[in-house]
Structure formats: C-alpha cells, structure tokens
C-alpha cells in the first residue's frame, strides 16, 4: 500500500509539488507534517478555523472555558508550534461561515427532525475535503495530506480512485469518509494509513514533537463535553430562535400511549435512559417520528431490523450498483461490518438487506458498504 502511494507520488514528480497538510494540533496531523517534511516534500501547514469556541461559552449552561477541542485556540497554538518546530509556513484560514451553514445548522435540524446526525461526515464532505482542497489549490498546493487513518490508491484496471480501510482497524475513520468523490480522492492522501496509533505516537516522539503525548479528541469538535442537547439549546438561543416544540407522546410499538416526552431531539434510537417511564422490562427507543412528535419505545427485540434504505448514496470503488451485490455494511462508526446485499431501488436510493437482523439502525447515521477493506460507498440511513 505504502509502495503504491510512493510510486504514485514519484509519478507526480513530487519534489516540485507543494502539499498542504491539514493540521489540527493533534498527534496524527502533526506527525504527518513532520514525516512529509523529513521526506523532503515542499509542505504548507493549514488549519481551518471552523467554529469559534467562545461563541456559546456561558450560554444556557455551556462551559465558559473551552480547551482541547479541534479549533480551540490551544489547538491552533499547538499546530502553529509544530509548524514552527519543523520549519514550514503555516496559515489559519477562516471558514466559519461555511461550517455553520453546512455542518452546524444541519446538525441541529437533524436532531429536531428526530434523526441522529454525523457532523464529522458532513465536515469531511464540505470542509476538509472540499473547502480545504479549494484553498490548497488556490495557494498553489495540488494535494492535501491529512492525519486520517485510511488509505487511498489508484486502481489502474478500473480507472478509479479507491478508499480503503487502514492497517489499524481500531482507528479506522473510513466510515466518515464515504462521501469523498473521485476528484477529491485524486488529490488527497493519508500517510498514516499503514501505521498503527502506537507507531504514530512513536514517530511523533522521534521527531520530538511537543504534542506526542497529547490525548486524542474523541467527541464532536463543536460540542464541548458531548452534551449535544445543551448545545442545541444554546445555539438556538444565540440565534434568537426558539426551540421548536416537539413535545409529544411516548408510545409503545402497539400504539399505546404510555407517557410523554419533552422533545424528540432528546432521544436517539437504541436509547434506554431518560425515557421517564418504569415498566417491568427494559424499554428502548425504537423509532422517532418527527411528523407526529412521537417517540416509539419497545423491548430489545423491537430494535432489530433486517433492512434499511440509504439515500444520497456516494459510490467510490464502482460507478453504479447495477445488480444486487454482496458487501459488508457498517451502520455506525463502532460497528463490525455486517454481511448484506445492496441493490438499487431508486435514482437516489439503495436497499440494504442484512443476512442477520441488526440492532438499532438509526436514521441520520450513515450506512457504509465494504468489500473486504475497500470502501464501495455509502449513503444516509432514512
């Protein structure tokens, strides 16, 4: 894999090409910058200023001080120091408007419609692999390197760029990258694809990067502490909008009303806590109906479903699903790809039928199709 990437690079006469490295201030992207610099490439470090962490500080119970999140001032400081240390030019570019429009707003709206969004995929599609590629090109860097754990290669036979799972499956980020187009993949590469996290940290230490031991950030970058409900309240209040009233009934799978809820955005499929009703056996959120503001609850057995419909599908390794195809499908990031058959059921829709029923298929999440370690493509679960 690495040799393929290297061959590709030499074909593109790398020594004269500038590569932009997307730097977050974290270990992964910092190590990428150091590696590529040490290999003699012409590098420019870029950080995208996507969200002003101080915007909602203090609103509606949001924490006053924010550190350790992507785009916090501390992270930008860290990225800048790494760039200075390895001796590359470094810039911060402001794309807050686009991030708010293409990631934050949809995030809020998805929850308010009863779906569970994945902002990281939207950020990848619109910012990291779209806006950043544009900026890179504008400043004279033909390609972008990031610290994602994934692999890109070019399949000569198919004439297509392929996205593949990385060597370290525990850090596999391909689930969030299913939306990348051929054009985007042709200009991106992931130097960490063949490395384990431990190897990356070792390399960071070897380069004496100050951030070698910095902990990974796990949550959504613009929601400090992970409390998305508080974020939604604070954001809407800052926008001068009132939280829409989506309070309604808690209903069983038989349609029996057994309680009330204060807003559909407080729930996600598979959730057990916070239902406010006590019954003999555990109850889980089975379905959220935005239309009639209902949260449907039921026993564990109701959480299982054998199929899903995916819309706004993006295909990577193939041009189209012309006939039913066997793949393995992930329905959330932390999920073992499950064997399934995919078939096209509409212009923009793919039906996924699993061999075995899957637990808690959640509208708003992504269904990503794998053929071994190749990402076939993916779509949004409806």
């Amino acid at each position, binding site marked *: 894999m690495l040799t393929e990437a290297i061959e590709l690079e030499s074909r593109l006469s790398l020594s004269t090409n*500038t590569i932009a490295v997307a730097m977050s201030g974290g270990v992964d992207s910092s190590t990428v910058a150091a590696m590529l610099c040490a290999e003699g490439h012409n590098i*420019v470090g870029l*950080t995208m*200023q996507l969200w002003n962490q101080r915007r909602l500080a203090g609103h509606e119970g949001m924490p006053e001080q924010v550190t350790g999140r992507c*785009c916090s*001032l501390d992270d*930008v400081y860290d990225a*800048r120091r790494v760039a200075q240390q390895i001796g590359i*030019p470094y*810039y*911060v*570019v*402001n794309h*807050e408007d686009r991030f708010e429009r293409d990631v934050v707003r949809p995030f809020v709206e998805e929850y308010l419609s009863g779906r569970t969004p994945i902002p990281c995929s939207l950020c990848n599609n619109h910012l990291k692999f779209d806006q950043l590629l*544009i*900026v890179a*090109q*504008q*400043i*004279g860097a033909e390609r972008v390197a990031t610290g994602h754990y994934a692999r890109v290669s070019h399949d000569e036979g198919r004439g297509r760029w392929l996205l593949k799972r990385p060597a370290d499956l525990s850090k596999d980020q391909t689930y969030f990258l299913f939306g990348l187009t051929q054009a985007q993949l042709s200009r991106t590469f992931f130097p960490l694809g063949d490395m384990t996290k431990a190897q990356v940290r070792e390399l960071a230490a070897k380069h004496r990067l100050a951030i070698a031991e910095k902990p990974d950030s796990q949550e959504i970058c613009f929601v400090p502490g992970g409390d998305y409900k508080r974020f939604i309240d604070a954001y809407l209040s800052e926008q001068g909008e009132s939280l829409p009233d989506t309070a309604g009934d808690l209903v069983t799978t038989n349609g029996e009303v057994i309680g009330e809820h204060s807003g559909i955005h407080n729930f996600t499929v598979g959730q057990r806590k916070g239902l406010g009703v006590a019954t003999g056996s555990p109850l889980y959120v089975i379905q959220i109906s935005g239309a009639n503001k209902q949260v449907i609850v039921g026993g564990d057995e109701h959480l299982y479903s054998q199929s899903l419909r995916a819309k706004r599908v993006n295909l990577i390794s193939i041009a189209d699903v012309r006939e039913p195809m066997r793949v393995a499908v992930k329905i959330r990031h932390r999920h073992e790809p499950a064997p399934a058959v995919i078939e096209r059921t509409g212009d923009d829709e793919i039906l996924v039928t699993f061999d075995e029923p899957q637990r808690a298929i959640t509208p708003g999440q992504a269904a990503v199709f794998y053929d071994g370690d190749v990402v076939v493509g993916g779509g949004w679960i409806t």
Partner: protein
Amino acid sequence: MHRVYLDNNATTPVLSEVFEAMRPYFAERFGNASSIHHHGQETRAAVEDARESVAKLLGCAASEIVFTSGGTESDNLAIAGAVAAGDHVITSSIEHHAVLHACKHLEKAGCEVTVLPSDGRGLIDPEDVRRALRPNTKMVSVMTANNETGVLQPVEEIGRIAAEAGVIFHTDAVQAAAKIPVDVRQAGCHALSISGHKIHAPQGVGALYVKKGTRLQPLFHGGRHERQRRAGTENVAGIVGLGKAAQLAKEALGRGDENKMSAMRDRLEQGILGQVDDVAVNGQGTPRVPNTTNIRIDHIEGESLVIALDLKGLAVSTGAACSSGAIEPSHVLIAMGLRPDEARASIRFSLGKQTTEADIDFALALVPEAVARLRELSPTYKKQAGSS
C-alpha cells in the same frame, strides 16, 4: 527566498539610524530615568530629548507629550482618561479596534456611545458629529487616517465643531503621523495618539499628546512618571527610538519625501488597475496618506491571495487577524458599505520608507499572475465571464 514587505501599516522595520540611536541604551546607558544618580540623569536626558523630538513632529510643547507602550495604550488612556459614567462619547465605525473596544467598555461602565457611520468613500461627515452632540457629550474620537484604506478624515472641521461645543476631541493619528504633516493646533485636538512601530521605531512604545489643561485619569497607578499621567519605569531605549524616528520623519516631511512615496504607491496602484480586470480602489478619489492603497479584487478570496503571495515572498494583508490567526473581514470596509465577500476580496498594500522601486516592480510582476490563477479556480468569475 527574496522577500518584499508591503504591509507597513501593520508594522515597519526599525531604521538603522533609529537602531543606532537606541543601541547605547541597553547595556551602556541603562539607568532608570527617575534615579537621581549619574545613570538616571543620562537616561532622563535622553527621554526628554526624545520628548522634544516628538513634540516638534506634532507641533506641541514637550510637556504635552506622554510616553506609552503604543497606540492601543494611548487610545485607551485618552478615552478612559477623559470620560466618566454618565458621559456621552461620539466615535466612528471605522476606528481601530483599540478605540472601538475602549468605547464599548465605557458603555458597560455607564457611558453612552454614538458610533457614526462612514460613507462609501470611507469618510466621516463632520455634520454627523455636530448632529450627534448632546448636552452630556464629553468627547469626540475620530481618527486622522484610517489604517485599512489610508483615507484622511476631516479632522480640522471636527476639531472646530468640538471646540464650539466645548467637547474634548481625541484623534488616533497612528497611521497619519510621520506620513503627512500633523499639527495638533491645526487639528484643534485635545488628545492625539501615535505609535512607534508604525513609524520605523520599535514595537512597544508610543505617545499621547494631551493639550495643556486637559484633565486625564491615568490608566496605570504607581509612580509619578509622565507628570503623573502614566506610571511605570520608562522604556528608555524604545522612547529614544521613537524620538529618533520622529526627528527623521520631521526632516523627511521637510524635504517633501512623501511625494516620492505617493508616486510609488500610485505606480503600484495604477499598475494593478491596468493589468487586472474587475478591480476597484476602496477609498477611491479621497485624500489618503501617501503609502496606502486598498484594492478590491472581485471573484477571489483575499485570504487565499495573501497566502499565495506570501508563499512567493510578497507580504500584504487583508482584513484583521483574529486571535487564532484566521482573518475576519475588515469592519472598516463593511462600514463603508462593502458586502462581506467584497471586503474579503480586498487587499491592502502599504509602503514604508525602505520600499524601493524594485519592490514595486516585484509586486507588479507577482500580483496580476496570482490573481489570474485564483480566478481560473473561481466559479463566480467563470460564471460572470461566460455571461458577458
């Protein structure tokens, strides 16, 4: 890499004569200017000499000059120093953040603030000042020259209006001093700010002119330095540098050097306007300081152009850097009526005493090509080109 610096409104290099004047004041003549022994006497003398030089540049008495840490402190000292709770302040939407935020802070402390609009040319209307006056107006603060556009404000008229109303007039002259003749009596101001690092003196030093008889509450409490207006051991080396830079500026203005400067600026401006389509000067046709041109270049992202030029060795700027280092569109251009995308597409070129004709040639060789490249990548440019 060959580097050309055309961002002198952000900061300027210290001139070698200034540096040489400062040199003895680090290790040889290091005394605290307030000490009574020989070491203090010699630095005290240097500070007072510098004060005379600054006073000569501004047309005032030495006793009317207070040394500070820079333009921001001078602005804050003037504003917070003269205004108390219940007072009204009139300022403008194109002021530097030091003035705007100092006024905003006053609002929290119980003052009323009127922020006057700018017209499309970047000018404040003196009649707006007159109309905004209230019985409790204490101060008017309007800058002499704008840092983004270089546009010169009608300070003499504003000074007259303030005098008639018995109101204190402060002007931030950070971008005007040393570039054009500035005379505090002509401007009719009671307070005027300057900054060392904008006039080829080092960063960390500035001055505030305070008209005799004007009462000022100090910002810093401590020793009785600067006639009890600004506590803190004097930054002797910095002050010496400021004094020398002021002296050199006075001499240069006496020779009419600013005409050479504006000729170079005009050549740069005309060169870009001539070689690039869909451009416009922000502040077109208004009197400006001789070193600045702010040019709007449609259908490009100014931030990307600044970075692309920097990677090729040319330093210019757009907007203002925020705390992360990302750029926010200029509030001045927005106040002038530009849309955010137009403000983001505007680039400021600002020359310095060290700028040469070769530097202008370098810029003219790089800029049109860089713009063309960006436009090739711009969807809006293609759309508009296709429709014409």
